[in-house]
C-alpha cells in the first residue's frame, strides 16, 4: 500500500490544490497511490470531512500537520486534542524538543521533513547547533527537493540511524505522488499509519 505522506491543499496559505482535484488526478493519471495525507502548514484541520471523496475515488485521505520549529519543519501524524493543546501549531519558532516530546506523550509521530534542504533543513541545523535527541524518522524523499537535497537527506539519515519515509510536498495538483511511502501492511486509518511509522513497517519511494 502506497501513501503520499506530505501534501497541501488550499487550506495551506501557499497551497493551490483542491482535494477533489488531487483525487481525480490520481485516478486519471493512474498513479500508484492508495491515498494521501494532508499536512497543512501550521494548523490541524479538524473540520473537513473527505469521506465522500474517499468512497467515490477509493482512496484513503488522512489528515496531519506540518509545524515549524527551530530545527526546521516537522510533520506530525496522529494529531489529537491533547497534542493541539500541548504547543502552538501556528508558531514558527517552536522548540523541536517540545514538539517531539509532546508528540510522543500524546501518541503521535513527529518527523522532520526535507531535512537535507540547505539552511532550513534538520541536518543544516545539526551542522550549526548540534544533534538533538528524539528524532528517529525523517522524510528522505521530498517531491519538492532541489537536485542533491534528497541525497543529503538519505545519506545523513543513514549516518544517524534514522528511518526514512517519502512525500511529495505537493502544493499544486499535478505534483502529487512525486514521492511517497510504501507500507508493508494495509493502512486503514490514522492509528494504523502511526503504528506503521513507529514500527518501521514502511519504506520511502520516489517517482520523480
Amino acid at each position, binding site marked *: 500500500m502506497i501513501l503520499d505522506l506530505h501534501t497541501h491543499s488550499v487550506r495551506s496559505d*501557499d497551497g*493551490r*490544490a483542491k482535494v477533489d482535484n488531487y483525487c*481525480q488526478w490520481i485516478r486519471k493519471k493512474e498513479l500508484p497511490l492508495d491515498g494521501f495525507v494532508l499536512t497543512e502548514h501550521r494548523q490541524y484541520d479538524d473540520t473537513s470531512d473527505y469521506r465522500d471523496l474517499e468512497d467515490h475515488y477509493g482512496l484513503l485521505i488522512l489528515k496531519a500537520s506540518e509545524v515549524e520549529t527551530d530545527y526546521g519543519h516537522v510533520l506530525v501524524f496522529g494529531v489529537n486534542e491533547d497534542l493541539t493543546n500541548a504547543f502552538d501549531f501556528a508558531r514558527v519558532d517552536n522548540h523541536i524538543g517540545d514538539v517531539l516530546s509532546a508528540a510522543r506523550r500524546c501518541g503521535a509521530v513527529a518527523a522532520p521533513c526535507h531535512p537535507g534542504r540547505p539552511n532550513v533543513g534538520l541536518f543544516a541545523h545539526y551542522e550549526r547547533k548540534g544533534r538533538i535527541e528524539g528524532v528517529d524518522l525523517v522524510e528522505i524523499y521530498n517531491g519538492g527537493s532541489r537536485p542533491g537535497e534528497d541525497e543529503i537527506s538519505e545519506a545523513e539519515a543513514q549516518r544517524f540511524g534514522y528511518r526514512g519515509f517519502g512525500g511529495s510536498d505537493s*502544493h*499544486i*495538483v499535478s505534483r502529487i505522488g512525486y514521492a511517497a511511502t510504501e507500507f508493508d501492511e494495509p493502512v486503514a486509518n490514522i492509528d494504523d499509519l502511526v503504528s506503521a511509522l513507529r514500527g518501521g513497517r514502511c519504506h520511502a519511494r520516489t517517482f520523480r
Partner: protein
Amino acid sequence: MRFSDVELGDDLPETHPDISMERVKLFVKSAYMDFPRFTDHEFAKAEGLPGAIVPGVMSQGFLAAMIHQWAPGAKIHKLDTVFRTTMVVDTSATCRGAVTDLNEESHLVEVDLTMLNHEGVTSVIGTATVELAD
C-alpha cells in the same frame, strides 16, 4: 483549442521564455518599474540576490502567454502564483502547465502552472482558471 478538445491531465506545450537582460530591460521600461535589482547584476548581488532577478509580474506574463499559445482566444479569469525562489536574468527558464479540472457547465478549465529555472528548480507555482470557447 476548444473546450471539447481538452482532457483532464493534458499537458500544455512547454515554453522557454527569453529572460535575457535585453528583454528584461524592455519589460521594466514598459512597465515603469526600471529598478536596478532587475537590470544590474552587481547591484542585485550587493542586495544579497544571486544576480539581477526577473520581475514577478514578468514571470506571470510568461505563464499567461503559455496559456494563450496553447489556447489562442482563451479568457484567463484568474492567474494565481506563489513565488518560491528567484529567476536570475540571463539564465534560462521553462514554463509548464497541466489541466487539472474541467467544468462542463461553465467551460472553465483549471490549469496548474510551474516555472523552472536553469537548474530545473521550480521557481514559481500557480494555477489559472481559463475559459475556453465551445
